[in-house]
């Protein structure tokens, strides 16, 4: 079998769409500082404002509600750290005694930020999830109160693909007067996202998960809701985010979002078929596997599988030798001794969490590639299991 190069790590990041690349190459000419007054600056500024309108219309928001940031982590930090603000303006989010509610399966840029908030004395409630990774609504109702300041729940999980019912969460939170944030980094480009429909007050996303460039992201902030600046400095983004505007990144993000509008329906329909083929193939060809994530409410491109008795980093590196790029929830890949917090939260034991592999597909994934992966994976798993102290099949 001829070795191929198969990239199945689209949830980590995506390659630039060729048309995004073209647009960005042209964008290199727009070197002027968009905050300046002269003609070259106005040309750059026009492009930025064009993208701002495009992002707004994509999200069902208005352009003044769109802030360009350095990425998803910055957008998440900006929202969450409004709760550590000691009172910057009359609009400041922080009120004495306010609490934060989030979930056990958030991205590290949320989890570690709320841990920081906890360390400076804020009260944080972390919601458990069920075996599919869906947020426990009863637990949410139990901790939701007049004291709740902010609720932050991701729209779709990066590791297992489970889609959360952010709309219902927002409705409940708003009844109590709480603000609602959603980390939509994995959702944009994979499922439809509308701030009107979700009724959230803040939403974060990043350019590089949908074939745009890295280092640029968006924070949606509802006009009528509080906003505390995270990066202080110049007056860029109406004083809400200082730093010379990333013209090139914004142009790339805009083009990528335009292409999401054109191509998402077709791409995701095709990707879903391939993902389902991969899922069916692995469960048929490899014994003793466990599928992680929600069977229906799941991103169409994500497949997370635990292989009993096989350690994830070893699987990942053997697949890598065959040209297949995936990721794992094993502790060994993270440099800590703890395996994936997401899988542990779904109740998967440490062994299955260490033995988990995430396949995430994208627009360039082909049927031929899935055939190749299905030809390689069973042999790799068998090989790792043969060496394993904890895997012995009674029938062999």
């Amino acid at each position, binding site marked *: 079998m001829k070795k191929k190069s198969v990239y199945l790590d689209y949830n980590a990041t995506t390659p630039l769409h060729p048309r995004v690349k073209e647009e960005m190459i042209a964008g290199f000419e727009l070197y002027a500082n968009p905050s300046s007054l002269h003609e070259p600056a106005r040309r750059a500024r026009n492009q930025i404002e064009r993208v701002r309108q495009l992002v707004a219309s994509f999200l069902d928001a208005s352009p003044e509600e769109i802030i360009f940031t350095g990425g998803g982590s910055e957008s998440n930090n900006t929202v969450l750290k409004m709760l550590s603000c000691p009172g910057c303006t009359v609009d400041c989010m922080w009120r004495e005694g306010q609490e934060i509610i989030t979930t056990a399966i958030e991205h590290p840029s949320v989890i570690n930020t709320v841990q920081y908030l906890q360390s400076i004395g804020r009260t944080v409630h972390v919601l458990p999830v069920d075996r599919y990774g869906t947020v426990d609504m009863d637990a949410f109702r139990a901790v939701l109160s007049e004291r709740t300041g902010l609720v932050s729940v991701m729209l779709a999980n990066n590791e297992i693909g489970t889609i959360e019912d952010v709309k219902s969460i927002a409705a409940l939170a708003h009844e109590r007067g709480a603000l609602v944030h959603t980390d939509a980094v994995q959702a944009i480009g994979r499922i439809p996202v509308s701030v009107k429909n979700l009724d959230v007050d803040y939403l974060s996303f990043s350019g590089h998960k949908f074939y745009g460039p890295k280092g640029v992201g968006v924070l949606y902030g509802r006009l009528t809701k509080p906003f505390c600046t995270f990066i202080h400095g110049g007056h860029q983004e109406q004083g809400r985010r200082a730093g010379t505007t990333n013209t090139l990144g914004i142009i790339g993000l805009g083009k990528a979002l335009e292409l999401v509008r054109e191509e998402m329906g077709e791409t995701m329909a095709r990707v879903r078929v391939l993902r389902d083929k991969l899922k069916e193939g692995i469960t048929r060809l490899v014994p003793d596997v466990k599928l992680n994530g929600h069977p229906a409410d799941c991103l169409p491109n994500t497949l997370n599988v635990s292989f009993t008795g096989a350690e994830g*980093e070893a699987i990942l590196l053997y697949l890598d030798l065959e040209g297949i790029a995936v990721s794992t929830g094993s502790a060994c890949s993270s440099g800590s*001794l703890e395996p994936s917090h997401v899988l542990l939260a779904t109740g998967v034991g*440490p062994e299955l969490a260490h033995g988990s592999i995430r396949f995430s597909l994208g627009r360039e994934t082909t049927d031929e590639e899935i055939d190749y992966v299905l030809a390689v994976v069973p042999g790799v798993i068998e090989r790792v299991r043969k060496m394993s102290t904890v895997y012995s099949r009674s029938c062999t």
Partner: protein
Amino acid sequence: MSDFDWVYTEKVKDHFINPRNVMEDEGAFAPDGRGVVGNIKCGDQMLMAIKVKDDTITDCKWKTYGCASAIASTSMLSEMVKGMSLEKAYSIKPPDIVKELGALPEHKIHCSVLGDRALRAAIEDYYTKSGQEDKILREKAVVVCQCMNVTDKDIERAVRDGAHTFEELQYRTKISTVCGQCRGKAEELLHEYVHLFGD
């Protein structure tokens, strides 16, 4: 392929791709001594089995639930000990394995700890079965960390080898990395041994 293409050295990679002496059928191997250490919770467990003749290891086979470094370092170790006297094999330490492999990424060195510990357990198993318990050095050792089976003698050895802080001790022995209940006792012993043997 350049070093940048692989996080491990060529030798580690070679042992990972072609692991030596993996035990496929323990019944057929019929070991004279076997030892299992590690904990699946931490993501790695190791089994080592030896055949012995005239106080020399004539064959060695192993199995692991572990990462690439654990696979490579144990494969390396299994080659090292063939033909080696039990006495010498009994004193092998992780740095000896890492030295043979060339290098391991910094955060992966703890992965090679399990191999030598499983080997010692296998040798002790052999000593016990052959009525040579007197040769077991750790006979009087007291287990401090139940999860990782680390004894007071292991802590002493780690301190003698240069561990002076709790982090350094964990790095060498993996002590208190699972449930953490032994941390107080471990720190007490560390303090004591650093006082005795530290410079």
